[in-house]
């Protein structure tokens, strides 16, 4: 039996059928029919954000922490353009989103109508796929395919632009599942020959290293388990990209820490000296590789990735395996069949030497809290709660990646690819909605937090007990650090002037505000934050001049890391400046 329904009703019904719990959105003229269809709808919960960028990031946080797709609903024109940063962010970090944007009515398209923007054109290169739906009869099939595309293969954002008249016009809406076009079917399993070759390479390697990334998280919790199983068979050390943290437990003896620009000495040296790199769901990003011609020069490279376009994009690999991380890891485990890995004692001894550099150490500061210490204490005092952590972007993000430790997937939400300041607060709101009762903390900087500060109101409205832990050093710290290293300390516009009183700001939104000014207050302040049953901003004043080390300077190789205490020159040649 079929029934005539409006486009707006078809949309809402289709979202319910997809099992959507939350829609993160903001109303406006071109989505009023959809908002009317949502009125009184109890099967979906609409979360009213304060800015459309917040909607997209909140949906990302929800998706990243639950493994389910995030759904965004915004109006045409500025609603859509405000959401673009979040869409681009989800595209670079492979986060499954379905973004529904209102559009002016079809007769008005192209006429520079009020709140008209070419949303399909604007989002074309920052989403996995997009649609302009011109007939409500196509809507159900488009939504079904959009969810399939967003969540399978390499996940990503899909945009559906729906003109207002299409929301109002009616069409048949069949009861059963829609007929799918089946034009998208990503390859999940790796080729048998490649798997056999991978098993062989791994079994023969004398100095192997696992280099894992966000693909392991995206593949689902099973991939993290399988990674641990494979590692247990081979005993190879493991490093991870920023996006992959949590896939491998940070308290494991073979955990090297994060690699790359602010990665550990042992991770980067292990990559440089390895004879075999097993890349699982990572993409040889420039922040990971440093200078390409000096990257892991003597290694054979296996690259497991579901996206064929990630293979050989920046680094030539010897054995590409196109497939889903969990499926391929299972295939390798099945193919292992009692093989024996090489004795890695000599290799591990070298790793131990690199570890002895203690590259994450930092100087004590009697006058101010070292920011690394603040993160360490935050970790120690919250780890029993197995918290979900989001970050903004900058020094605090790197310190969190270095000094907060993760033991499972979906606990670490950060903007890795696009590097979007303002990501963390809305993301933690989305995560808290998807994980009620969990301790959810946004580790922020005083500059980044102001980029989507308006979302404080969203948390208040939905009674979300999220915590914001601000490392306040009164600088856009990463910008200041680069100006110090590259531009002879000419601090052009990197000082955070005219900061608000964050405690009062918290109170103004009905949050609790806590100020931490010295090390003596640190533990008590963090404990007070944990114990408070409601949203909290902690304004933690930290040393203003601390820099984030270790660091591979622009244009340098993994072996040319700057370590804490290194004397840093104040300028760089143009080539190095241009590289990053």
């Amino acid at each position, binding site marked *: 039996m079929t029934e005539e329904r409006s486009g707006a009703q078809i949309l809402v019904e289709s979202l319910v059928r997809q099992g959507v719990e939350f829609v993160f959105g903001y109303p406006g003229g071109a989505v009023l029919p959809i908002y009317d269809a949502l009125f009184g709808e109890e099967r979906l919960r609409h979360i009213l954000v304060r800015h459309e960028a917040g909607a997209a990031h909140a949906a990302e946080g929800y998706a990243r922490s639950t493994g389910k797709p995030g759904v965004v609903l915004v109006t045409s024109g500025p609603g859509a353009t405000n959401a673009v940063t979040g869409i681009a962010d989800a595209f670079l970090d492979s986060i499954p989103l379905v973004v529904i944007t209102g559009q002016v009515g079809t007769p008005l398209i192209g006429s520079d109508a009020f709140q008209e923007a070419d949303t*399909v*054109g604007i989002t*074309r*290169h920052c989403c*996995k*796929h*997009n649609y*302009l739906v011109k007939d409500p009869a196509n809507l159900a099939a488009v939504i079904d395919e959009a969810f399939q*595309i967003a969540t399978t293969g390499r996940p990503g954002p899909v945009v559906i632009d729906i003109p207002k008249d299409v929301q109002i016009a009616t069409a048949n809406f069949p009861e059963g599942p829609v007929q799918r076009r089946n*034009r*998208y079917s990503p390859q999940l399993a790796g080729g048998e020959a490649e798997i056999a070759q991978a098993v062989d390479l791994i079994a023969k390697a004398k100095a192997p290293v696992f280099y894992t990334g966000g693909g392991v998280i995206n593949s689902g919790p099973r991939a993290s388990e399988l990674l641990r199983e494979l590692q247990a068979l081979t005993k190879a050390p493991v490093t991870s990209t920023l996006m992959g943290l949590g896939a491998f437990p940070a308290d494991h003896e073979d955990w090297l820490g994060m690699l790359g620009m602010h990665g550990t000495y042992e991770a980067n040296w292990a990559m440089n000296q390895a004879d075999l790199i097993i890349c699982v769901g990572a993409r040889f990003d420039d922040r990971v590789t440093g200078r390409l011609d000096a990257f892991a020069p003597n290694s054979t490279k296996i690259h497991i990735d579901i*996206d*064929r*376009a990630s*293979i*050989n*994009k920046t680094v*030539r690999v010897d054995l590409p395996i196109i497939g889903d991380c969990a499926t391929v890891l299972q295939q390798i485990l099945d193919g292992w069949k009692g093989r024996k890995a090489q004795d890695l004692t000599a290799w591990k001894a070298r790793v131990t030497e690199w570890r002895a550099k203690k590259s994450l150490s930092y100087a004590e500061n009697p006058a101010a809290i070292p920011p690394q210490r603040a993160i360490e204490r935050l970790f120690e005092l919250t780890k029993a709660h197995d918290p979900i952590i989001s970050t903004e972007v900058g020094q605090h993000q790197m310190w969190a990646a270095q000094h907060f430790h993760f033991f499972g997937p979906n606990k670490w939400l950060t903007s890795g690819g696009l590097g979007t300041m303002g990501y963390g607060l809305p993301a933690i709101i989305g995560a808290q909605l998807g994980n009620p009762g969990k301790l959810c903390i946004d580790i922020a900087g005083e500059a980044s937090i102001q980029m989507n500060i308006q979302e404080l109101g969203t948390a208040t409205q939905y009674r979300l007990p999220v915590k914001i832990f601000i490392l306040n050093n009164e600088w856009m710290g990463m910008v200041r650090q680069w100006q110090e290293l590259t531009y002879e300390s000419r601090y052009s516009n990197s000082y955070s002037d005219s900061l608000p009183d964050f405690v009062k700001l918290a109170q103004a939104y009905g949050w609790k505000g806590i100020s931490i000014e010295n090390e003596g207050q640190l533990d008590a302040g963090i404990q007070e934050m944990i114990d408070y049953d409601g949203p909290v901003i902690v304004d933690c004043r930290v040393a203003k001049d601390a820099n984030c080390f270790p660091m591979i300077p622009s244009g340098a190789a993994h072996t040319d890391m700057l370590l804490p205490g290194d004397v840093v020159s104040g300028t760089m040649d*143009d*080539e190095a400046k*241009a590289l990053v």
Partner: protein
Amino acid sequence: MTKIEQEATERHVLMLTVDNEAGILAKIAGLFTARGYNIDSLTVSEITGDHQVSRITIVTHGPPAVIDQIRAQLERLIPVHKVVDLTEQGPYVERELALIKVVGKGEARVEALRLAEVFRARPVDTTTESFVFELTGTPEKIDSFVALMGDLGLVETARTGVVGMIRGKSST
């Protein structure tokens, strides 16, 4: 001073079949722009009776690694069914059609017509002072003819860009 280095490049002819949906051409052309790839020519037309599928032929050039990336990036687009690198898959035939307008009188006009015969270019329009020649062939052949007409009153050239197909009985 830093300089931008250039790598040695190869010419490749890519054949795509795509869903004939709104924006697909913009998507493909935009991908080339956004990722810094080159388009030497691009042709597109529907190839099925129901207007559902189009065939696109793109001539591009770049270092081998970039050509490989172009293919991978194109294959990643949802409406793209397949991408065939004719240059790699070869042998293949490629053809281009050109319309060439030559204006002149007397000896030059006679010479233009004589050369057109040599190249098997057909006059498809003529006045007492002009010809429009239609010429089909490889891009090199058309280049040569256009160059010759340069001295004989060439005023306008229109070219379709390349279409191509694998030789032999197998289909791509």
